């Protein structure tokens, strides 16, 4: 029954995903407003993680300024809907586009940079965005922040956390769809190619510059959408939400979850949003723990949580499928 495949994803994974979806749809009414809020936060982090993982995990471009694009999305959504009176459902995608354009602008100087230099430039971009947030109080409310109300859908304001949760869930699912589609496409393969070997990529007609720019744009778009949702969920945003720590958190999501893997993004974001809430008593130490966790994962499980499954399976079956295929080939040639 699980021998089919949907868009290249194995039958087993589809069934598993469908089961999760069912739970995500059916369970929430049995929980309280706090849980809805937390789940919404977790889903927004999933969107952030997916965007960053495409840029860093798949396309190999290190970025420390994901929170800047989140900020742009958050403030743009708020400005467009509150100050300009646009419908939230227009403001949100528009904010995503604005964020995407910023990603494009950052992408340009980033084209010629790699590794450390790219990291430094993205760090600089982050600093500049922080400063601009503070220095443009007309748009952003400056250091004091700005409030961002819940949108209305079909006449009803989505003030209940449950109703907004379902909206965020829908958008997260759309994000997952796009990400899965992207990675199983020529564009997705182009991303992986430029990460693995720029030389080989170019000789296969993959344009380095356009591909990198595409990765920055898509990543920024997702971050912008996530930011817009975040603003309305939380109701109030200020520059503190979008600093280095937030960017680092996103990096931790994807490293712990698994670089280059959508499942990894989901896993990392969900686990690392829920866990700190569960361990709320130790909130003071959260940053410290995240830092330590990052180091541990880099040393012990560099391919992230997603690699745990295959690793355990390989241990149990004593060597893995690949070796047996090679052995079969060799005996056939004899």
């Amino acid at each position, binding site marked *: 029954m699980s021998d089919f495949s949907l868009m290249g994803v194995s039958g087993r994974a589809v069934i598993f995903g469908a089961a999760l979806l069912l739970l995500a749809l059916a369970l929430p009414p049995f929980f309280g407003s706090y849980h809805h809020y937390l789940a919404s936060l977790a889903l927004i982090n999933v969107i952030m993680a997916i965007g960053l993982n495409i840029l*860093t995990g798949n396309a*190999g471009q*290190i970025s*420390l300024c994901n929170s800047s694009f989140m900020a742009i999305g958050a403030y743009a959504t708020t400005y467009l809907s509150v100050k300009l009176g646009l419908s939230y459902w227009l403001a949100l995608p528009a904010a995503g586009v604005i964020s995407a354009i910023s990603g494009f602008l950052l992408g340009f*100087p980033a084209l*010629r*940079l*790699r*590794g*450390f*230099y790219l*990291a*430094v*430039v993205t*760090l*600089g*971009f982050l*600093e*500049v965005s922080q*400063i*601009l947030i503070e*220095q443009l109080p007309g748009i952003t409310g400056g250091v004091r922040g700005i409030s961002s109300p819940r949108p209305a859908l079909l006449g009803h304001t989505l003030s209940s956390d449950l109703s907004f949760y379902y909206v965020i869930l829908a958008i997260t699912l759309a994000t997952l769809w796009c990400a899965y589609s992207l990675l199983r496409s020529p564009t997705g393969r182009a991303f992986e190619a430029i990460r693995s070997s720029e030389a080989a990529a170019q000789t296969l007609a993959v344009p380095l510059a356009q591909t990198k720019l595409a990765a920055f744009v898509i990543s920024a778009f997702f971050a912008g959408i996530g930011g817009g949702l975040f603003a309305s969920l939380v109701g109030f945003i200020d520059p503190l939400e979008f600093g*280095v*720590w937030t960017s*680092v958190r996103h*990096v931790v999501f994807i*490293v712990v979850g698994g670089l280059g893997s959508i499942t990894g993004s989901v896993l990392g974001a969900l686990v690392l949003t829920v866990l700190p809430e569960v361990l709320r008593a130790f909130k*003071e*130490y959260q*940053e*410290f723990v*995240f*830092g*330590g966790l*990052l*180091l541990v994962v*880099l*040393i012990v499980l*560099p391919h992230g949580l997603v690699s745990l499954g295959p690793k355990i399976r390989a241990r149990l079956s004593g060597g893995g499928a690949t070796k047996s295929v090679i052995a079969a080939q060799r005996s056939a040639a004899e």
Partner: protein
Amino acid sequence: MTTSIVLQLIVAGLSSGSIYALVGLGLMLAFKGTGIVNFAHGELVALGAYAALFFSVVLKLPYWQVFVLTLIFCGFVGVLLERTLIRPLMRAPSFTIVVATLAIGLMIKNVLRLSWQESVSTFPTPFDELSLRVGEISINPNYVWIISCSFAIMGLLALFFRKNLTGKAMQAVSQNTTAARLMGIRVSRIFSLTFAVSSAIAALAGILMGPVVGVESEMGSVILKGFVAAILGGFNSLPGCVVGGLTLGLLETFGGAYFGGTFKAVTAFVLLMFVLLVRPHGIFGRAEARRV
């Protein structure tokens, strides 16, 4: 703009520029010695400031003892870091290095934040009470101290790397580890020594910065300015880094005075982008193969 203000701006600009140059030098040194670009370097600056704060305010030691003790302490921390965390990173891809050193920095920052609960503090220097005048113009003596101390240390470093055997050994190690080993140089020791000196320089920046800008947990963000200085020096040239840092300091200070706070804040980034796009190997740097 009166001469008085211009002179004060120059001194202030050179002062902050010297700090940036020091931070950049520490970054460059760690990179040349171990191949690691240490994104925790800013937190090592903060560590220096906090250590000095502790020695000065809690242990109530005189400035010169604070100075020396802090440098030794941070050098030690540097060796510890190098042996435990940095050494295994040396062969990792650049993404891992960036993220791992960021993580280390995050942990250091939080240790500092949690152990010193007050938001901003400062500690005294012997120069606070001094009054310095050039004609009618009054100059902040701390600025002068920062400039002279920085230049003295940078001069010492320049000499060290030209004359001293250990300095030459560090250069050899940074250029070719295998050959260095074959020549009998204790490569492991050199790595630790390099990192110790790099951390001590960071601490020095912290000691000098602390009294002037205050000691607070976000001080580490000065790393970006250090990067600009180091990149202007092509991540290679000591004089380039110094010129880079001073240029940034002066641009910021004068820009801030003429064009306001926003200008001042984005100067670093603009300068960074300009250099990276126009002259990526820095002012004095040579275009050489980099371990990027």
